[in-house]
């Protein structure tokens, strides 16, 4: 780690973020200038810009950590991973949104500006190394999420969703800011590297040990839990997801969630976390609640977006298993160059990557079907196998992957997460001693809850498949039922990209595992 005292030193490593910021302005300008003459200008420029951003981000992958802006911002492989996820999500959502947004809004140029800035916010969340920057990044993403959720100004559901999302989010971020203020008091600085691990900077926690620490941790967890939709801070998610324009829903279910995990990793996954040593137990309890609530509530949903919203809550729960077991599951494979995986953390990252593709894929199919039927009801999926076999098979694969069936990406996501928990459980890494001599092996029960939930989840995922293949189309006259669904080019390409990625991650998980194992270390300091 290097700490350069020149404020602008390392500005070159900030190139992707600068590009994204400028890209947002350019897209805004193009959107305003071209209006309806060249409706494709704004999305195409967005795509080009995001595509150009990918190599810029990828070039930062080099197994070392550099801290720039005098400790405010960090460029390491963990950040690179999350930035790649953010840019990929942004690009895919742009493709999805191209035709969708154009239909609902003729002057849709600024939507892509908002999207680009949201991606910028996600990148900032990935690299933030200072509570102030973390806050700014989270708020950037939040504000843009509210706006994008309410983008369909004249639609009551969209307006309502944005209001609820905003009110809930404002309170959550106020609580988190309060927690951060306490954390600042405890630590004496807002800089992360030096904030929690005291070796990096000659600095000790000013108030440590302090009874304020757990309270600060809980309050910060409220804000992060809000971002990743963790129970009991998930309430906004189903309503916002349902009311938002579907491409925005797709983006919200992937981008901010992933970035939330980035900050969770930076704040909590520290060797000898001085902030609040018992946090894994707390998060474990919340993870179990998250999984059960998400999956249970999803069973009853008749709206595909709402079902996917609850399912995304449940998936946050699975990822949290890995977060809890972040330390417990390290393993190595020695031959052929070797892989040393930091079990839990890497499992979460793998999960996020697989979730990115399978969930965006499912949303892409949902959008195609929504556009054709004009309805988000799951019942309308009846007979889909006949109306468009490609969509039906794609949706089936995404749902199978979401339920964790091999050999698809979701399976290995789940497998690594559970595996990390079981490995940790074998060492009884996190144990809880209750009164009456009850001893709870937290990780073990966490893994059990995860497996049980995977089985519950199969029910509602397969219900959609059952409808598509074994039910006739309902509510349609015969001619309409036979009418084939033709998704737009953007949606089609997203479906194909995500399909390929879902299969690739399932068939060749080693590439990603190796990438993670070689580079990403918790806390970034080793």
């Amino acid at each position, binding site marked *: 780690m290097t700490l350069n005292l020149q404020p602008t030193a390392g500005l070159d490593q900030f190139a992707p973020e600068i590009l994204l910021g400028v890209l947002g302005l350019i897209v805004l300008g193009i959107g305003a200038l071209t209006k309806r003459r060249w409706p494709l200008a704004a999305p195409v420029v967005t795509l080009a810009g995001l595509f150009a951003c990918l190599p810029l981000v990828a070039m930062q992958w080099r197994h070392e950590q550099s801290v720039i802006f005098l400790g405010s911002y960090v460029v390491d492989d963990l950040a690179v991973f999350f930035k790649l996820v953010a840019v990929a999500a942004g690009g895919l959502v742009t493709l999805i949104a191209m035709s969708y947004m154009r239909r609902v809004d003729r002057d849709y140029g600024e939507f892509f500006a908002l999207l680009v800035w949201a991606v910028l916010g996600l990148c900032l969340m990935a690299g933030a190394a200072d509570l102030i920057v973390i806050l700014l990044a989270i708020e950037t993403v939040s504000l843009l999420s509210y706006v994008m959720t309410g983008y369909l100004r004249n639609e009551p559901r969209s307006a309502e969703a944005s209001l609820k999302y905003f*009110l*809930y989010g404002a309170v959550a971020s106020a609580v988190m800011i309060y927690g951060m203020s306490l954390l600042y008091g405890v630590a004496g600085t807002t800089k992360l590297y030096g904030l929690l691990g005291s070796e990096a900077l000659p600095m000790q926690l000013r108030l440590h040990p302090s*009874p304020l620490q757990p309270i600060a941790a809980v309050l910060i967890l409220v804000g992060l839990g809000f971002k990743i939709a963790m129970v009991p801070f998930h309430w906004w998610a189903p309503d916002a997801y349902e009311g938002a324009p579907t491409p925005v829903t797709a983006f919200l279910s992937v981008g901010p969630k992933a970035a939330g995990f980035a900050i969770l990793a930076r704040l909590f996954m520290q060797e000898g976390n001085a902030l609040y040593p018992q946090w894994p137990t707390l998060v474990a309890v919340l993870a179990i609640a998250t999984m059960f609530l998400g999956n*249970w*509530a999803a069973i009853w949903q008749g709206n595909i977006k709402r079902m996917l919203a609850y399912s995304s809550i449940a998936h946050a729960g699975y990822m949290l298993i890995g977060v809890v077991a972040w330390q417990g*599951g390290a393993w190595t494979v020695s031959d052929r160059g070797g892989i040393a995986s930091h079990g839990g953390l890497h499992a979460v990252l793998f999960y996020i990557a697989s979730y990115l593709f399978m969930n965006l894929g499912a949303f892409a199919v949902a959008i195609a079907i929504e556009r054709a039927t004009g309805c988000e009801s799951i019942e309308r999926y009846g007979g889909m196998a006949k109306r468009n076999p490609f969509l039906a098979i794609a949706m089936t694969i995404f749902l199978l992957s979401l339920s964790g069936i091999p050999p698809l990406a979701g399976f290995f996501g789940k497998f690594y997460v559970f595996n990390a928990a079981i490995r940790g459980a074998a060492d009884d890494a996190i144990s809880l001693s209750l009164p009456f001599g009850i001893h709870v092996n937290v990780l073990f029960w966490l893994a059990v809850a995860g497996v049980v939930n995977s089985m*519950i989840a199969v029910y509602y995922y397969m219900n959609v498949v059952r409808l598509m293949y074994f039910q006739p189309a309902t509510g349609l006259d015969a001619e309409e039922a036979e009418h084939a669904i033709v998704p737009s080019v953007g949606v089609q390409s997203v479906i194909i990209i995500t399909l390929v990625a879902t299969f690739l991650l399932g*068939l060749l998980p080693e590439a990603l*595992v190796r990438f993670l194992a070689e580079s990403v270390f918790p806390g970034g300091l080793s």
Partner: protein
Amino acid sequence: MVSPFFENLAWLIPLLPLLACGVLIGWGVKLHRKIGDRVALIAVAGIAIPCVIAWGILASRVSQTFGAPHEAGTHGESARETIEGPEPFEMAVEWAPLGPLSPAVLSPVTRDLSPAFDGRLKVGLRIDNLTAAMLAMITLVAMLIQIYSIGYMHGDERYPRFFAYMSLFCFSMLLLVLAGSFLVLFAGWELVGLCSYLLIGFWFQKPSAASAAKKAFIVNRVGDFGFLIGIMIIFFHVPSLDIRAALAAAGTAAFPPHWVAIAGACLFTGAIGKSAQFPLHVWLPDAMEGPTPVSALIHAATMVAAGVYMVARISTLYVVPQVAELEVFAGLTSLEIVRYIGIITAVLAGTIGIAQNDIKRVLAYSTVSQLGFMMFALGMGMAGWVAGVFHLLTHAFFKALLFLGSGSVIHGCGGEQDMTKMGGLRKAMPTTFWTFLMGTLALTGVPLFWAGFWSKDEIMAASWAVDQPVFWLGEFAAFCTALYMGRLMFLTFAGDHPRDHSIHAHESPKVMTVPLTILAVFSVGLGWLGMPGDHNLMHHFLGSSAPQIAEHAEHAVAGGAINIAGIEFEIVPLCVSVMAAGLGWLLAAVIWGWKLVDVPRLKQAVPPIAWAHNVLKNKYFFDEIYHATFVRGTLALAAGCGLFDKYVVDGIVNLVGWATTRVFAGLARLADTWIVDGLVNLIAEAQKLAGRFAAMLQTGRVQHYIAFSALIAALIAAAIYVLGGHWI
């Protein structure tokens, strides 16, 4: 050295049927509308190319086996010497890095002794001579049956779907056979079960078909559970999922014989379910509700043989504890369990077959019986190994032939399956008759020309040497085989015209009779490859795949000192076999052919015969026994649970109505659904209830949300403060 051209293409063998399946699922309906029945050619092509590759592989391995410079060690006193064949061909890809097992998960012994699991999950194919033979058999039979189905399924409204399922089955079965690791084996194992379920229930409009499909699925689950446990035991000891590694480790300190025995017994449970062995044989006859090509392919030639194949593949796991004479259960070693289960199945099913009237059911029981033969052959260890596999191969051909023949008969009789209504079909359906006759002769073990004779005789010869009581029981089963098959032939084909005058039989189209003819050729010719003596080609070829236990050579080879490479030609078992077959045919001819005995009057005159007939007709009351024990037991449990559920949820008012309708009136009728669904439904309902509750929390009012969240956060913070951060 023959270049492994075809071996290198092995990955295509399972892949092409899968591709065909995908095409048929995706575009089958559209194509069917456009090009009609020719859509089935996709499925045929999807199996024909693998068939070519499989026969290429077989040819290559045959030439390697027999062209090799080394003389197979069949001579001399080195009775235990194993036959050498070409090295198995392996093809594996690393699928995923899993990481090594945590030490705490491993058994203490393994931690020290076994080579550590290298942390990588590999999936791959493995082809040895056994696999090559199986591949050739399966692809050929499957191809012929697919061709046959073009005619048989004509006019079915879900025509493309049928071929899609059949292709999926081919994929699964080939995957199972090619499996190099237990993981792939298990995937194939479950997939064939799924396909079997889908195909038995293909005509799901028929309630009997739907319930038969369900029955097959559930009974197989029972076996698969044991199978999975067996795999886990192996994985925890070896620790690898590679079959060869598991076999190599068997008996070493890492994988001690008593664990080997238990693992073997568990795996055998899977085989009991899949290969319809006693006491899980009940699903197979019911499975005949599916279309006849399905019965021929899945429930005669291939899938039901998967259990036998699996046992053959891992028979080292049975031989090793046998050497150590470790008892698993009731004083029996695992090998003896295999043997006795096999012989019980053979006799039981053989006797039941005599009293059945449904032509397909007779064949079904005959299949069960023959599977019993194979199983007890394998249960004699090294002595019967080759004989069992040989019988598996020959049986596949002639039983597929018989089923397709029966399908042709049923097709010709307009869907009639009751033999007592048929008769005189010989004239109406000459091709069917002649091919059917070939199959029957092969099955009943009529000497010299027909395949079944050679393979069955080898089993008999082996059992004569190893276990004489089993030999005599086996001969009795063989006698029964001849008896019921003779009965079937006489009832169906003999005479001048059908007994039921509504039947107007006609010969089936070419597309159905040509496969029959080809299968008939194999039913006859295949046996010659296994003629006993020094030049027993089957032994030379298959022997290299037989269990290799060189490191235990000091011990007596399990099950007798007979060299697997060449069973001594014994005159006694041969004669007894011939006599058993002859007696069976003779008795059948006396009763049903020449009608010298009037069966109803005989039953009246001699009550024991009537009783026996009754018992056999009712299949030893197996279904009833299961119904009375398992079904009723579970039913009572489910009823109890349901009672509780309903009591809590709906109160006592509904209880009365529920009790009258469900418990008393619908008890017997709903038994099947209840045993399966009762507990499952209860759990599912609980989940749904919880789901409703969880969803109801989402009131739609943002301030409720904020209040809920804040309350919980505040409670957590307060709890931390109160508890001093001790627990959470």
